[in-house]
Structure formats: structure tokens, C-alpha cells
């Protein structure tokens, strides 16, 4: 065992270069998944560095660490990369790796389309960033690039065009991956793997994929229309020629809110896998978890205009009601996770710590979300730092903490060796306070009326203190993230073999070897529940 793992980890030199080419041309869903996750994590690190620059500029009132134009590029690239190039694609990469394994398939339904998606995603990401090398600099209209600010007549140069083209590629990549995941999980299930035995993660990916298919076409449409306005003399969003800026907002947010769930459902799935394993119990209320995911998916296409309450152009009451409603299925999930821990035997290795961190942070983001669903209150807090706090509690405190849980949980399966627990725990215990120090004060700043996306702010009472606190917190948070990067590096220098099933896992992927063979399974156990690996261990224990 020991020997084989070491060999898998450090192949001889020649094999290494052959291996490199093999990675480039691979259509194996596991390799594509790993590439997807590594690439998106690289975008996370880059976007994180941009965020530190933003926090440096805002550490005190009146600084000029960067100028206003650079600042606008910074938050635009930060937001774009985090949303389009990190959180959402990391979820897709993880699904790429896990869904075929979890349903007992040998690969994705369309392996070559899968490779195409990945490379399109890489090209799209690089295209977005390449704007930074143009004369006018990178896109600078914010991650939702409202028209007509994004129009060429209002100043943004070639960087904006590259942003549009890059995101069109990313959209196409996402749509293809969505189709692939749907086909795989619906049609490529192993015998015995009925829909109601699919792991919750796979279920969440099914709903995510459906949302991708509904949300990305309108985004692509909106982007194409902006491009037509910019370069081909169109007037879709130009009020002076009968165009309508509100139309852009409708199209964008009809994508934008489902996108929010595209960025969170996969990670609801992650903690629905980790929490049961580390509580030594089956997940509580499997059917409830699946139904609530479907309910969230359905409701999430009916809330988009809660981003437009202050436009005065939408029926606020309708969108308010649906936004309130969507909190209910989210709440159901919370109670199910608590029910899973209830009367269990909890252990706290790093993936469980990050899962609990996810619960603690996401709850706050969910509560502020409900508060913003009330239009009169939103009239005050929209476009202030309160929104920034909210969206980071759900995205950073929620999705990203779950991403770290996923990294620590599945790393041994993917690479055959474990990540160090000591550094992992240090990483968690720095990220949790670092995150809260950074983002909690932003609620207060927003309530005081500090608008988002300002390059600097007046020295009003208390503003300097809270901003400085946020900047200090972001340093701690960054160091915590760095520890995990260091952990990966150190752990791969002295790999500790993981074995097939280091955690006592439940879903099918824990049955095969770590890393799994090219076709995933030499054999598949009988599947009689949503915990085939658990059932197999029970049967083995009972056998004489």
C-alpha cells in the first residue's frame, strides 16, 4: 500500500513529462475536475490579492494607494474573478470529479465536450484578465457592468470588450458542463442507483445544472447586446435613442440571482456529505434536503428584481414576497444539518471544522438576506457596504468555507494522501476570526451610509476605525488561506498515504481506490440505500 502511493505521487522523471502531455489532452473527468479546481483556485488567489489591494486603499480615509481608475479595475476584476472564475467553476470542477464517481459511472456522458468546457473556461478567464494589458486598462464597470455605464460612449475601452468576450466563453463552458452533468446523473447511474439513492451532493448538482441552463443564456444575451451597442452601433440600452437601461438590469439579474444559487447549492451539497460522515449518522431528512433544493431552484428564478428595488421600475411586493419565501427552504436545510448532528458522535477533523464554519457564517448571510428582502429597508441599505457584508457572508463565509471543507475532505481520495491536520486546523482558526473581523464591521458601515465601490471615504465618526478593523481582518484571513496552500505543498513533500476510505465515508466514491483507477471502478457493490459504502462495511462486519 505504502509503496504504491509513493509511486503514484512521485513518478520517475520521464513518466512525468509524458504525464504532463497526458494532462493537457485528457478527457478523463477526474483529471478535468482536478484541472478545473486548480485553475479556479488560482483565480481565487489572484482575486484575493486584488482584494487585499482594495482593503489597503480603504484602510484609512483619504489614502491614495491606488488611483480611482485602478480602484475601479480592482473591484471589477475581483468580483468578476471570484464569481465567474472561482466559486462557480470550483463547484463545477468538484462535480466533474465527483458526480460520475457518486453515480457509479466510468466517466461523464460527453468526455470530449467536457474537455472543451474546461479549456473554454481557461481561455475565457485569461481573456477577461488580458484587458489589464490594454491601453485603457481592464474592465472597470463593476461585476454587473450596468448599461449604459458599460457603453463605449461612457468611456470604457477594449478591456470592457475583452471582459464581454471572456464571459461569453465562460458562459458557453458553464452551459456545456451543465448539460454534461445532467446527462451523467440522469442517464449514467449504476444499477441500483435510483434517483432517491443519489448522494445529496449529486442532487444539488442536478438542480445547479438546471439553473445554469436557465440563467446563462440570458446573461449571454445581455452581454451580446452590450457588445452590439458598443461596437456595432446598436442602441438597446441607450435611452437617447429609445433604448432602455432597465432592460439590461432585468436580463442581468435574471441570470444574477440564479447564479447566486449556482454558487451555493454545490456547497450545500458538500456539507450534506461531510456533516453526516463526521456525525456517524445518515443525513437527517434526505427527502427534505432534496425537495428544498428543488424549491430553491424553482423560487430562485422569481426573485431577480430584488436587486432592482430602488429603480422604481418593478413590482416590489411580488419580488419581496418570493425573496422572503426562498428563506424557508434554506432554513429547512439548516435544520436538517442540525438534525444530522443531533445525537451523533461528532469528530472535528479539518473538513468538519470548515463545515461548521460554513453553518455559522452562512446563517448570518441568510438572515441579512431576509432583511434585504424588505424593499423599504433595502431602500436604505442597497448599494452600501451592508450589501458587501451580506454577499461575503454567503459567498466567502458560506461557499468558500465549504470549498475548504471539500478540499480537505476529498483531497485524500483525489491524490491518495492526506493534507496535514495541524496546519489545516491553524488555517481554519485563522480564517474564521479573520473573515468575521473583515466583514462584520461592514454591516455597520453600510447602515451608517457608506456606499459600496468608493475609492475613498470622508473621515466621519467611526468610519476610519471600522475600515481599519476590516483591513486588519483581511490580513488574518489571507494568512489563513495561505496556510492551506502551504499545507498542500508540505503534505505533498512527505505524503501520508490515505487508504481508500480515510473518513469512513458513505457515498460510492469511498469504495474505489485512492486515487481511483482510470475507469473509476473495478467492481461496484450492491446499492441498497443512499449510503452504499456504509452498507458495504456493515455487511463485511457481519460476515463471519
Amino acid at each position, binding site marked *: 500500500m505504502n509503496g504504491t502511493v509513493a509511486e503514484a505521487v512521485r513518478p520517475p522523471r520521464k513518466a512525468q513529462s509524458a504525464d504532463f502531455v497526458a494532462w493537457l489532452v485528457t478527457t478523463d473527468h477526474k483529471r478535468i475536475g482536478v484541472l478545473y479546481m486548480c485553475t479556479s483556485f488560482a483565480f481565487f488567489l489572484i482575486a484575493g490579492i486584488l482584494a487585499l489591494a482594495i482593503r489597503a486603499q480603504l484602510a484609512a480615509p483619504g489614502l491614495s494607494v491606488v488611483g*480611482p481608475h485602478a480602484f*475601479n479595475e480592482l473591484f471589477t476584476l475581483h468580483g468578476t474573478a471570484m464569481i465567474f472564475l472561482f466559486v462557480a467553476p470550483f463547484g463545477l470542477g468538484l462535480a466533474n470529479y465527483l458526480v460520475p464517481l457518486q453515480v457509479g459511472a466510468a466517466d461523464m456522458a460527453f468526455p470530449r465536450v467536457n474537455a472543451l468546457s474546461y479549456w473554454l473556461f481557461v481561455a475565457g478567464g485569461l481573456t477577461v484578465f488580458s484587458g489589464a494589458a490594454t491601453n485603457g486598462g481592464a474592465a472597470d*464597470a*463593476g461585476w454587473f457592468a*450596468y448599461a*449604459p*455605464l458599460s457603453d463605449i460612449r461612457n*468611456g470604457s475601452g477594449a478591456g470592457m470588450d475583452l471582459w464581454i468576450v471572456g464571459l461569453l466563453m465562460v458562459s458557453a463552458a458553464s452551459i456545456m458542463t451543465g448539460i454534461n452533468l445532467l446527462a451523467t446523473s440522469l442517464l449514467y447511474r449504476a444499477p441500483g442507483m435510483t434517483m432517491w439513492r443519489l448522494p445529496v451532493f449529486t442532487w444539488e448538482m442536478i438542480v445547479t445544472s438546471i439553473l445554469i441552463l436557465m440563467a446563462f443564456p440570458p446573461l449571454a444575451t445581455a452581454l451580446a447586446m452590450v457588445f452590439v451597442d458598443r461596437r456595432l452601433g446598436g442602441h438597446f440600452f441607450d*435611452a*437617447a435613442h429609445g433604448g432602455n*437601461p*432597465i432592460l439590461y438590469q432585468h436580463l442581468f439579474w435574471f441570470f444574477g440571482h440564479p447564479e447566486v444559487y449556482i454558487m451555493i447549492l454545490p456547497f450545500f451539497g458538500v456539507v450534506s456529505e461531510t456533516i453526516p460522515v463526521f456525525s*456517524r*449518522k445518515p*443525513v*437527517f431528512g*434526505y*427527502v427534505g434536503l432534496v425537495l428544498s433544493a428543488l424549491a430553491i431552484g424553482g423560487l430562485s428564478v422569481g426573485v431577480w428584481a430584488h436587486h432592482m428595488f*430602488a*429603480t*422604481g421600475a418593478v413590482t416590489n*411586493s411580488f419580488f*419581496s414576497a418570493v425573496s*422572503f419565501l426562498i*428563506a*424557508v427552504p434554506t*432554513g*429547512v436545510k439548516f*435544520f*436538517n444539518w*442540525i*438534525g444530522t*448532528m*443531533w*445525537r*451523533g*458522535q*461528532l*469528530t*472535528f477533523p479539518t473538513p468538519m471544522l470548515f463545515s*461548521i464554519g460554513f453553518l*455559522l457564517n452562512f446563517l448570518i448571510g441568510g*438572515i*441579512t438576506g431576509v*432583511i434585504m428582502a*424588505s424593499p*423599504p429597508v433595502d*431602500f*436604505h441599505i442597497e*448599494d*452600501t457596504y451592508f450589501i458587501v457584508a451580506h454577499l461575503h457572508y454567503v459567498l466567502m463565509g458560506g461557499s468558500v468555507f465549504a470549498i475548504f471543507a471539500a478540499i480537505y475532505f476529498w483531497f485524500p481520495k483525489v491524490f491518495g494522501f492526506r493534507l496535514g491536520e495541524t496546519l489545516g486546523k491553524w488555517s481554519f482558526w485563522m480564517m474564521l476570526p479573520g473573515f468575521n473581523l473583515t466583514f462584520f464591521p461592514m*454591516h455597520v458601515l453600510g*447602515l*451608517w*451610509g457608506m*456606499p459600496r465601490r468608493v*475609492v*475613498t471615504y470622508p473621515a466621519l*465618526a*467611526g468610519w476610519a476605525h471600522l475600515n481599519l478593523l476590516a483591513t486588519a481582518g483581511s490580513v488574518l484571513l489571507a494568512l489563513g488561506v495561505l496556510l492551506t496552500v502551504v499545507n498542500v505543498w508540505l503534505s505533498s513533500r512527505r505524503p501520508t498515504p490515505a487508504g481508500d476510505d480515510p473518513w469512513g465515508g458513505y457515498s460510492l466514491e469511498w469504495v474505489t481506490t485512492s486515487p481511483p483507477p482510470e475507469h473509476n471502478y473495478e467492481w461496484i457493490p450492491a446499492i441498497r440505500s443512499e449510503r452504499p459504502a456504509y452498507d458495504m462495511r456493515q455487511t463485511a462486519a457481519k460476515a463471519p
Partner: protein
Amino acid sequence: MQFANSGEPAVVRCSLRSFFLRCVPCGLALSGCGSYGPPAGSTRQAQAIHGLWGVLLWTGIAVGIIVYALILWSVLRYRNRSDATPPPQFTGNPPLEITWTVIPLLIVGVLFFLTYRVERYVQDVSPHPAVTVNVTAFRWSWRFLYQGSGKAIAGTPDQPPQLVLPVGQTVRVIVTSQDVVHSFYVPEFLFKRDAIPGVKNAFDLDIAKPGVYRGECAEFCGLSHARMLFTVKAVPAAAFASWMQSR
């Protein structure tokens, strides 16, 4: 418990002792009634919004405390005590699950009802406003035009304009933009409304307290977005009338 209204730096004033005596019992950081919450609101509409905020905040805090307690209880009480017997493998409890679906439904139902009432009030526009101001946003400042008087004020990023308004009378504000989307935002009024090219957005303000209030552009609009400021000076009706007469 209002001590943030005087315009003085309330947080700076809030010593550690007074912090624990006043702020903490008042509901920790996000309390609606101290220096860590939104301004109390200087218009009648804002006061209604502030009340609604309080309800939402305290509901949120209550729900948060209950769920945090359940999580922390599970973590502490059920941590592995290394007894060999595996825990009970129960998989759900339908009556319980229905309960925790229905109760949140009721809670958000009530919140929506309260929201609806306040929203009706805030969005309501009077048929006979005393003063009507046309606000035009442009990159990167504001132009205020008092309807029926020809009085106009325009600013620049370096010289933010001042909007003078009467206290105790209904003011109609009609916002639009001449280039990109901006947003007319006065934090003390707990209110903003987007300024959109081609759209005339109207709302009413009933200012309750005289004072000078900070205003800002809330929708990102490019290079000098952060400098797109203005002030609102609310003066008694008589003073307003004589100001309108002046040049």
C-alpha cells in the same frame, strides 16, 4: 437611547463603560437604537422604515440566537466521547420537519405583511406636494431645479451642491439622469432612488427635523463616483419661503 443624533462623533464618545452600560444591553453591534445601527431617520417616511428595520433586526437576532444555540449545543453535547456503540441511525422525523417548514413560513408571512404596509406608506405620493424639485444626476454631480420658480442649483465634484428643502411640508422629488445610472441617496432619510436616463422617478419626502444632511450617489457611475456628493439643508417653512424669494 438615542445618542447618535447630535451629529457628534458618537462612537468616539462612547467610552468602554458607557459601551457596556448602554450599547450592549441595547442589543450588541447591530442594535437599531444606538450608534451601531442606521440613523433614526429625519423624514416621516424614514421613521416608518426605521420601525420596520427594528422588527426585522430583532426577528433576525432571535432566529440567529436559536439556530446558533442549536448548532453549538450539537457540537458540544454530541462530540465524540469515544464510546464504542455507534449512535442511533435515525434518518428523519416528518412531523418535526413539517413543523420547521411551517413556522418559518408564518414568520416570513408576518414580515411580508409589515413590509407591505410600510412600503405602501413610503411609496405613496401626495397629489398636492408643496414643493417639487427636479433632480438631474450627471457625471459627476447634481442639478436641482425647483419647479415653477426657475430656481436652479448645480454642483461639481469639488463643489457639492446644496438642496434646500422645507421642514413639515411634502416635497416631491423627481430624479433622472443625463448619462449613466446614478442613485440619489440621503442616509439620514434611509432612502435612495435610482436616477436612470430616460426615466423620471418620483417620490415624496416629509422632512421632520431641520438640519444639514449628507447626500451621495449610491450607484457606481465611473471615475469620480465617490465624489458625487451633495447636502440637503432642511429649514423651517418660513425660512424656506424667504430663501426661495432670494436670488
